[in-house]
């Protein structure tokens, strides 16, 4: 093992050490806040330094031919072993950098944002495990290691989303997140099992860069899914993991609720960790998906089409619902779903590099937006507390939007009764409702500028934002399919263009409602800018939200067009391209770029005309509410939760409640009853042992048992010898019986 491989092993280690240390200290007694801060920050900074060293020294290497890494056997059975190992290869190289940097910034932010929480130390402890798991996942060299960290992250997300455990909505959201992603994990587990039994290895490099294995998987028909190739079925099963973790339709429902966790956790989940892991998984197996093209005479084949369809569907659903939300974090949550849909759609169209590119840029600007929204909420709350302390207790909010009881809109800080700010009016005021904001640009200038940069990046504001370049490449891939006459790609192109327009629109709506106009509540009027620990990360992330696009600007663009990421990633597909026999080269066109520019500006302008030019006054209805029934439908999140409840959860609960009544009592007892009627005493004996006997015979059976029990009690004097003797007698009788019939 060379030094670089050792360093790669070490990237996640500081965070796990920090986690262990803090867990032990917290268990052994009190873990003071400064100590927790020191340990957590040391851990994450050490991980960042290691990651930067690995990143910098790997850049010179030919990682595609010779990835840096090592592994050791973890579970050996017979002549096969499951390994645990790490690797740095072209695909995870940029993620090593992005994840460690984003985590560091989020940690720094948390030290201020969570400072007043009595369970601060515990929060930082979980955060260390969360970040460590993600870094471990990024450097995994095989699917099993990947899955190990993947599941650990699932557990951390459960603990962190449900961090305010005394808040029922947070608890529900945590369970929902864990269970929904676990449904995806189930498919992933099957995919792993299938891949393992088909190839005998789970190592990414050994499978994805190996022509023979890919060839074999493509030509082997799948078990039980007749007609498809093994590669298609394995690819789709593993993609099931992405659907869960990256909140793709139809498993997208957990992500919006996940913002019940503290805002830094939302930033972790939406940018650096959970959802990125899902897309990263699909990128990891992309060569396998790519190889399925070998079988397809025209078009993209089942695997790609399913993925493309799900991605486009998710992009559209997310964008539509985001338009009709009032909660500042909820808008961002649905925008994440929508943007993840873009990435998945890109994968479904074979645009490997574009998907990775958008994943990276999105991570930066979405972390920025979430941290920015946290800053806004913190500022508004500050204003609200300021007010509450100034005003007499029980002071009603004349202008605040009151949260309905069933809404999940409370900010964690508000409902968390033990954080020391216990103003009586607090639960009624929603510091996350954008209708309670307005005019914050003057009160919180740093937050405003950085949020604006993040918003423009999300909208794809031309040329100067990273989001423009990455989204443009996805649209470019769809456009290429359109020119080649592929129906599905034409539809995807239309859907993505529409979704991108909506994205620009709701982003501008959000910015305008939050920062422009005049303050619509006293709280917003008294909001204050936050300390440097919160604004510094915003500044750093803004830098990347603007300039991260430079890593993959098309080479047709003069001077800045390097296609660094493309050059890095494309060689990893060589093996799969050999299997297909021909390369599906990306064709550059200026048409989608012009479309990107037009829709980005169009959405932003419409948003500005409606919300910016005529700022919303206090208690004035939002213009989108004029949509009537459609608004209600979208505001209620298209009723997916209600649908799932009616279609899946209720029937399952009914089965669980009634299964034993129907099957145990009805069928098993029914058989026993029938056997009793026919077979006489032996069956009667069996039947009567059952608790739930048919009413008519129960008395008789009861008496029989009482007598039997009585005699049994007399027999069983508590002496082992006597019992042994009876067992022996029984055995002898049986022996005699068999000797006799012989």
């Amino acid at each position, binding site marked *: 093992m060379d030094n670089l491989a050792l360093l790669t092993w070490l990237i996640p280690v500081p965070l796990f050490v920090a986690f262990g240390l803090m867990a032990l200290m917290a268990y052994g007694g009190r873990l003071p806040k400064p100590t927790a801060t020191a340990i957590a920050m040391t851990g994450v900074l050490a991980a960042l330094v290691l990651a930067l060293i690995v990143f910098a020294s790997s850049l010179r290497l030919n990682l595609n031919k010779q990835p840096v890494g090592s592994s050791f056997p973890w579970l*050996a059975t017979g002549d096969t072993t499951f390994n645990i190992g790490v690797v740095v290869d072209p695909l995870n190289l940029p993620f090593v950098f992005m994840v460690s940097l984003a985590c560091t910034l989020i940690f720094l932010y948390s030290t201020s944002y969570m400072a007043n929480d009595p369970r601060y130390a515990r929060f930082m402890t979980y955060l260390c495990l969360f970040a460590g798991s993600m870094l471990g996942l990024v450097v995994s060299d095989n699917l099993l290691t990947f899955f190990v960290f993947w599941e650990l992250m699932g557990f951390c997300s459960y603990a962190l989303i449900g961090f305010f455990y005394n808040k029922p909505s947070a608890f529900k959201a945590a369970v929902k997140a864990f269970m929904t992603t676990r449904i995806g994990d189930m498919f992933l*587990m099957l995919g792993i099992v299938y891949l*393992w039994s088909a190839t005998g290895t789970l190592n990414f490099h050994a499978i994805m860069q190996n022509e023979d294995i890919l060839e074999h998987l493509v030509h082997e028909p799948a*078990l039980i899914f007749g007609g498809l190739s093994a590669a298609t079925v394995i690819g789709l099963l593993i993609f099931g993991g992405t659907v869960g973790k990256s909140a793709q339709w139809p498993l997208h429902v957990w992500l919006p609720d996940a913002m019940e966790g503290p805002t830094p956790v939302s930033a972790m989940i939406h940018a650096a960790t959970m959802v990125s892991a899902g897309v990263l998984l699909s990128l990891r197996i992309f060569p396998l998906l790519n190889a399925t093209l070998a079988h397809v005479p025209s078009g993209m084949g089942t695997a790609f089409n399913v993925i493309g369809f799900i991605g486009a569907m998710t992009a559209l659903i997310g964008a539509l619902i985001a338009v009709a939300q009032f909660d500042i974090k909820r808008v961002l949550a649905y925008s994440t779903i929508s943007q993840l849909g873009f990435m998945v759609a890109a994968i479904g169209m074979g645009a490997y590099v574009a998907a990775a590119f958008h994943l990276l840029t999105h991570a930066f600007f979405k972390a920025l937006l979430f941290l920015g929204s946290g800053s806004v909420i913190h500022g508004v709350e500050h204003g609200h507390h300021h007010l509450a302390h100034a005003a007499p207790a029980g002071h009603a909010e004349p202008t605040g939007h009151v949260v309905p009881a069933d809404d999940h809109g409370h900010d964690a800080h508000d409902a968390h009764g033990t954080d020391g700010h216990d103003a009586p009016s607090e639960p009624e005021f929603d510091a996350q409702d954008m209708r309670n904001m307005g005019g914050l640009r003057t009160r919180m200038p740093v937050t405003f500028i950085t949020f604006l940069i993040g918003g423009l990046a999300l909208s794809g504001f031309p040329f100067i934002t990273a989001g423009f370049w990455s989204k443009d490449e996805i649209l470019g891939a769809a456009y290429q399919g359109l020119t080649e006459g592929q129906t599905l790609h034409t539809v995807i192109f239309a859907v993505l263009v529409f979704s991108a327009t909506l994205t620009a629109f709701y982003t501008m709506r959000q910015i305008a409602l939050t920062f422009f106009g005049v303050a619509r509540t006293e709280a917003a009027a008294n909001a204050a800018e936050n300390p440097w620990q919160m604004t510094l990360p915003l500044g750093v992330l803004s830098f990347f939200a603007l300039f991260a696009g430079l890593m993959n600007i098309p080479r047709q663009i003069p001077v800045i067009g390097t296609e660094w990421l493309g050059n890095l990633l494309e060689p990893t597909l060589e093996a799969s391209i050999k299997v297909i026999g021909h390369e599906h080269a990306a064709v550059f066109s200026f048409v989608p770029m012009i479309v990107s520019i037009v829709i980005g500006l169009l959405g932003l302008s419409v948003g500005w005309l409606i919300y910016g030019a005529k700022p919303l006054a206090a208690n004035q209805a939002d213009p989108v509410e004029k949509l009537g029934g459609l608004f209600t439908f979208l505001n209620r999140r298209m009723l997916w939760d209600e649908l799932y409840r009616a279609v899946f959860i209720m029937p399952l609960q009914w*089965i669980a409640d009634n299964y034993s009544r129907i099957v145990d009592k009805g069928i098993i007892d029914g058989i026993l009853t029938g056997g009793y009627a026919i077979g006489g005493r032996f069956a009667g004996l069996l039947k009567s042992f059952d608790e739930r006997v048919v009413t008519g015979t129960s008395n008789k059976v009861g008496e029989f048992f009482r007598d039997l029990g009585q005699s049994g*009690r007399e027999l069983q004097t508590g002496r082992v010898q006597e*019992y042994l003797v009876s067992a022996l007698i029984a055995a002898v009788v*049986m022996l005699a019986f068999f000797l006799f*019939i012989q």
Partner: protein
Amino acid sequence: MAIPFLTLIMLCPIVGGIVVLLMPARNSEGIKVVSAVAMIGAVLLALAVLIGYNKTLGGFQFEERAPWIPTLGIGYHMAVDGFSAPLPLLNAIVGLCAVLVSWRQEDRPREFFAFLLFLIAGVFGAFMSLDVFVFLIMYELVLFPVYVLVAGWGSKNREYAAMKLTIYLFLGSLAAIVGLLVVYFGTGRSFDFFDMQNGIKNLSPDAFTDLLFRPSSLLGSLAARFPALSELARISRGWFPFLWIFVGFGVLASIWPLHNWSPDGYAAAPTPVSMLHGGVLKATGAYAAVRFGVQLMPDVAKYWLPIIVFLCLVNVLYAGLIAYRQKDLKYIIGFASVSHLGLVLLGICALNAYGLNGAGLELFAGGVMTGLMFSLVGIVYERSHERDYTKLDGLAKVLPVAAVGYVIGALAAMGMPGLSGFPAEMLIFSGLWQAAQTQSLMFANTLNWWYAAIAIGGVLSVVITAAWTLRVGAKMFFSEPVTDAWQKLPALDAREKFAIAFMSAVLIIVGVQPNSVMSIIDSGVQAMVKAFAG
């Protein structure tokens, strides 16, 4: 002469039990100390066996033989192979922890601990005996103390539950005895496992059918009259002994639909009995089904298990779903153990190295997990006298060690990486998937493709288990304390903390470094698998 480790392991609880019986009943502390010392001895010896087992050599080791009733082919024959080597340690660990958490037992402690120790001794004997006759005696020796302990020291509905449990298990063992007797008479009239195995190797798969349907027998003459019966006999090749043995022992492993005794029994049983029964005795059933069913008659197993696998799937899903909706903690863990044994049986039914390895690992680690969960439930119940988890809240504040133990047990149950459940589940599902690519013996020219569907169904268990563990843990331990009474519960004593920590540590060690146990189990499994290949 080599030290007879296996007999010594078994003697620990027997001697302990006899000493306890000789002690004055007033000396309750002394009785407990003796019991604990006996179990500590057993743990150390069982650990020595596991460490001393030579996995490169494989096969049966620590062999002890003595003639007993040579005319009937009965002898005292003890040995462990890789598959069974970890199981005495499982029994010793759960047994020791069971003793430690019942330290407050003041109701007839002398009898209680004596029966408990005899129960443990019987399980040791069953795990290590290679003579079928001795095995059956040990097996029955286990059932008897269970009955007395449940009926005498159990909670609500205890007599009904004790009777139901005993009769079910007794009928199961009767079926197995009949099956084994057929093998005994069909082979060389020796109860020795090796003799039986060699005898069967020389028989055709239809030998038992031929034996039962020979023209001079009753069945034979009936078959001559009714051709349908002889047709039935033809397709059911050797079903009689194999199915009776497998299903008979399967009753103890709570195979569906013969699981009904289990939740009722566990709900009524005192905590240490639930721990031993759920964690170890069920493992005895599954172990016996492997040893005396699958290993004895691999060809017939290959014929029948692809059908039985459906029952095991029902186990996993059915019991899991019921556990999800139950409110009584003991019923929840009881149904969960049924579901969990379903996974073990699924692994066995896969009939390949992955599946059997997974089953072996799950028997060991899953047994400790069930023991841990039952001990936690018992600890909570003993203090609060409340078994409905919806009425409990905020226990993490008063019983923090129990809460941590619960989290570890729950994560192991749901297959979280880093704990023992994950490698076991991974192997079991890999085994099932691989089995889907084998030829079916029952249906010519067909793959056992439904194993893939079984794997897909079985994987649902990871979601179902997560559902109930989260629900129960969150309500019971990690909710906001509402009820004052619960905040005044007495804290755990050092013994209880040790028991929880000990069992949790096993789950973590096996989870982080599964090879520690896996390599030993694997050496036994590889030998079994060779028989299937042939």
